[in-house]
């Protein structure tokens, strides 16, 4: 599909920004300033970007501990995210959550959880409420191929279909749950068939094309907004470039071939989308993003740690 250049610029900015933020996290990590586990999305950014560009601020997203890309793609505040990783009072969770627990309700980021599969039913309930409120918003839940193993996944898809709730399930299939391959945990490669069996359309997107993700997501989301569609399941094939948790690579562990990742690096969406734009425009975007990132890290560095009195705050809502 032909894309107007304005749209391509938006995609490029978002892809470049997320990539560069995470590269900065990798660079800072050895200083131990980020005393929080980091599950990087490097290589998988196109999934969040493709889907979130089809969303409005009023739509809600739910995610996992691998949530940096989702938070940023949906409009989460970058400064607050970096401050959160640094454990500072100015972080999106005042330092109480860290990298695995990002939220920005004002931008529809409704939380990321470190317990696999836990946000899936929550997104379904949220979508049910949207339906009751006759809102034209949708809920989107992002999770990995490991979450599909959990009972929660199955219970949630069943209920979502039963109540015809406007929720898009986005399974980022990077083939591994930590170091366990999808086919050592599942009898066959049939995630979409499972979703269909619960009563919803399911689409598998291969090839890592950010625009393909966008087109498919947008079509389904627009139908949901018009009340013409209930839940939909997307399986997006992707690849985690880095180790499961931490800033490094993990080929020395021997559970996967370097080759598996190499072909994804070749198809990387960041340079691909860049190539669709004028050099001039790219430079401007990159400059702006770099400035924003260095400001965000400076903000995090200069912010103060929470005081002891913060320990008991926010346990209950006043």
């Amino acid at each position, binding site marked *: 599909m032909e894309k107007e250049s304005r749209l391509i610029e938006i995609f490029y900015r978002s892809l470049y920004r997320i990539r560069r933020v995470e590269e900065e996290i990798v660079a800072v*990590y050895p200083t*131990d300033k980020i*005393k*929080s*586990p*980091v599950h990087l999305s490097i290589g998988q950014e196109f999934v969040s970007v493709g889907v979130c560009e089809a969303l409005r601020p009023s739509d809600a997203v739910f995610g996992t501990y691998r949530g940096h890309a989702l938070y940023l793609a949906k409009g989460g505040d970058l400064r607050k995210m970096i401050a959160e990783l640094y*454990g*500072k009072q100015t*972080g999106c*969770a005042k*330092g*109480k*959550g*860290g*990298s*695995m*627990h990002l939220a920005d309700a004002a931008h529809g980021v409704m939380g990321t*959880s*470190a*317990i*696999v*599969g836990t946000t899936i039913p929550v997104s379904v309930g949220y979508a049910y409420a949207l339906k009751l409120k006759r809102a034209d918003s949708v809920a989107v839940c992002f999770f990995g191929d*490991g*979450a599909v*193993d*959990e*009972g929660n996944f199955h219970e949630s898809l069943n209920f979502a279909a039963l109540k015809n709730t406007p929720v898009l399930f986005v399974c980022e299939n990077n083939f591994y*749950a*930590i*170091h*366990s391959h999808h086919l*050592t*945990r*599942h009898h066959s490669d049939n995630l979409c068939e499972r979703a269909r069996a619960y009563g919803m359309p399911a689409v598998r997107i291969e090839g890592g094309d950010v625009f393909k993700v966008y087109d498919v997501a947008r079509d389904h989301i627009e139908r949901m907004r018009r009340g013409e569609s209930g839940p939909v399941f997307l399986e997006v094939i992707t690849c985690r470039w880095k180790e499961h*948790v*931490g*800033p490094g690579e993990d080929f020395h*562990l*021997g*559970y996967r071939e370097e080759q598996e990742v190499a072909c994804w690096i070749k198809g990387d969406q960041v340079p691909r989308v860049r190539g669709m734009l004028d050099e001039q425009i790219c430079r401007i975007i990159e400059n702006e993003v770099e400035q924003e990132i260095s400001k965000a890290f400076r903000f995090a560095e200069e912010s103060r*740690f*929470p*005081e*002891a009195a*913060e*320990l*008991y705050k926010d*346990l209950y809502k006043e």
Partner: protein
Amino acid sequence: MERTLSYSEALREALEQEMAADPTVVLFGLGVDDPKAILGTTKGLLERFGQERVFDTPLAEDGMTGAAIGMALAGLRPVHVHIRMDFLLLAMNQIINMAAKMHYMFGGDLYAPLVIRSMIGKSWGQGPQHSQSIYPLFMNVPGLKIVAPTTPYDAKGCMVQAIRDNNPVLYIEHRHLYYQKGYVPDHLYTVPFGKARVLNPGDDITLVGVSQMAVECLRAARHLEEIGIKAEVIDPVSLYPLDIETISASAVRTGHLIIVDNSWMTCGAGSEILAVLAERGLLKKIDVRRMGFAHTACPTTPTLEAHFYPDAGKIAVSAHDMLSPGKRWSPAGELHREEVEFKGPF
């Protein structure tokens, strides 16, 4: 010379030797065959015993617990591993509604020998969902046995005992204990449940610490020793059955008792111990305090986390304050941290 092993080596050796001795033992859970081998505790076991007896599982905590119960009913002795105790929350249904009830509910006709290993996380941003230590929830449930060994010696002996026990046993580990080293015999042996271990003898005050808090209590005892206070440090080792006699006898002798839970204090081990002592009319003679996690979720940032956990310094100060009320003191200089400090990314 005494043979020294780390906690994780001791655990691995217990599994390996007992699996070699008893072909009905099977070991499974997320990551048991992983290159990191559950911090080394399952290393080499797949190679030695094969994938029928050692296997990775799908992410399905409740389902796999139910499957473990089924295996146990059919004569196997399953060991199910969880790399965080928080994940047990997904298996509560099978643990409490099924495993804990299996023998009683069927009038003794059935039984389910089953070991559930889980690890408590701490620091480096483990945060609210990866640092929970929920043994108090389980202490409330009849039909379960619960052990939380602290020393490498007990880690091995309790694991062998847990596998041989004919009931569901929760075996609780702590990530910071993994690097602790200590004497471990090379043969198979068991450590009986329901017997507390005195880690350090003393006459002035009794410190009881659960799991890694026993190590903090030992460090506190060293601080106190420097000012002439002799603290007796007791590791309950098993939380159910709980050896109240050893604790009670020590507390009556010293007249001062601090119980440091490795969890929130409400309805914790401390509450339980004090309730029993109160029922026995002993609290008139003993000064008591409880310590434990701050009653809030565990914050990720280190500055707040420092206020969340009890540690050797806080325990020592509290002990000193009980013995010399009104006099201020805090341990000087370096805190004793002989363990290899745990560092991220996880």
